[in-house]
């Protein structure tokens, strides 16, 4: 069964049945960033450690980065975002995904927040 977890930096991580993890940013994050106009994605085949800069997001207002919430090898990136970065604003939890990882340490995923805890965290912000 697939499961979605959240990082303190407002990324989501979705683990599917084959143990691959898809990374994106939350609706709260896209709302805070404003209209996204440019995205730089990691390279397929590269390895990321937890906390590594994985992608760059430029909104009309400012630049920010995605720090990989878990470690692993990048197995796919959402090339469509290069031409349509606004997709992240439209569908942050769906078509606006950033990259997929083959995780190297399953405990990292488990230590991310569940939906309830994440909701509680953003409620204070």
């Amino acid at each position, binding site marked *: 069964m697939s499961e979605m977890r959240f990082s303190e930096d407002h990324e989501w991580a979705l683990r599917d049945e084959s143990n691959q993890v898809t990374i994106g940013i939350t609706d709260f994050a896209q709302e805070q960033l*404003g209209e996204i*106009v*440019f995205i730089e994605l990691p390279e397929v085949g590269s390895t990321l450690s937890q906390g590594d800069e994985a992608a*760059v997001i*430029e909104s*009309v*207002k*400012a*630049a920010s980065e995605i720090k990989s919430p878990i470690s692993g090898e990048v197995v796919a990136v959402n090339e469509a975002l290069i031409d349509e970065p606004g997709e992240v604003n439209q569908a942050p939890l769906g078509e606006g995904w950033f990259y997929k990882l083959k995780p190297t340490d399953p405990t990292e995923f488990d230590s991310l927040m569940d939906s309830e805890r994440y909701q509680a965290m953003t409620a204070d912000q």
Partner: protein
Amino acid sequence: MDRSPALETTPLDPLHRELGGKMVPFAGYAMPVQYPGGIIKEHLHTRDQAGLFDVSHMGQIRLHGNAAARELEALVTADIVDLAPGQQRYTLFTNPDGGIVDDLMVANGGDHLFLVVNAACKEQDINHLRANITAEMELLSTRALLALQGPAAQTVLERVVPGLADLHFMQAMEAKWVRNDLFITRSGYTGEDGFEISLPSDCAEEFARWLISQPEVLPVGLGARDSLRLEAGLCLYGHDITAETTPIEARLGWAISSQRRNGGDRAGGFPGSKIILKQMSEGAEKMRVGLRATGRAPVREGAPLVESSGRPIGVVTSGGYGPSLAAPVAMGYLPPELSEPGTVVGALVRGKRVEIEVSPLPFIKQRYYRGK
């Protein structure tokens, strides 16, 4: 938790919040950076129809008396003594080193001079004026300032201010709305035709509500104000122009009136004029330029500009995404020999070198109304 000192608010604060404005601190004021429609929509709407901006955080000052023009002229680069009633000029406060202390608008209101200065420089400018002029200074702290900008601005404003169509770019007029005194100038900070309207604070919200009730008008926040002015090649004080840049380096030589230049009737006579006028004839070591990245990544303020060897040659002072161009745009400083449009240099974005090309300013065609 926000523990910063309490922010000041403008008379439109309740309206901004009611409209869903995302409020941010700016120059000590709570100001809307955008409304729910977003910066890109607000930007494009202003170029297409009309945008309403609350600029009440800016300083509005009246100078009274016969000495006002002569005394103000000694502090700025423009010809103020010969500024005719109903005319407005853009000018600069300078310091003895030739640096720019603030940029401002000065209009001749008939029996007074009307100044609009930057919010962040307001206190410093007032102190500067107090220390250097004897003319009576009236701080218009109970007046709001609204900007209505865009090709439909005249059509909209004429519905309540008859006679507006006769006003040209950089001209001023008095008007009445209900029983309230308006002071209107045909000027702005977007590159579009438009007006700035000074009015009593207690009627500002009602006037703003009427404006946004008009089908052409959308409220616009600071985000689009910045992207509009950047595309129009207009300087942002504290960023593109500072106490460390001279008017010549900033390519604002046009803001030095001919009477104040070498050979003019009243040449020099403003702080730093020797240095500035020397640069005007001999050139400066750096120049403000327009910059367009060849890639899609916006190049923002602070990005170093480098030559192919990696040697630093300048810096980006404003940069972001230009919605009307659907591309990144920036301004920065380069040595004069590298300031020709078409010259390609490097810019460091997150440590990576991207190519950026010197481009003519403004990036969009300015559409000021200068008469038929």
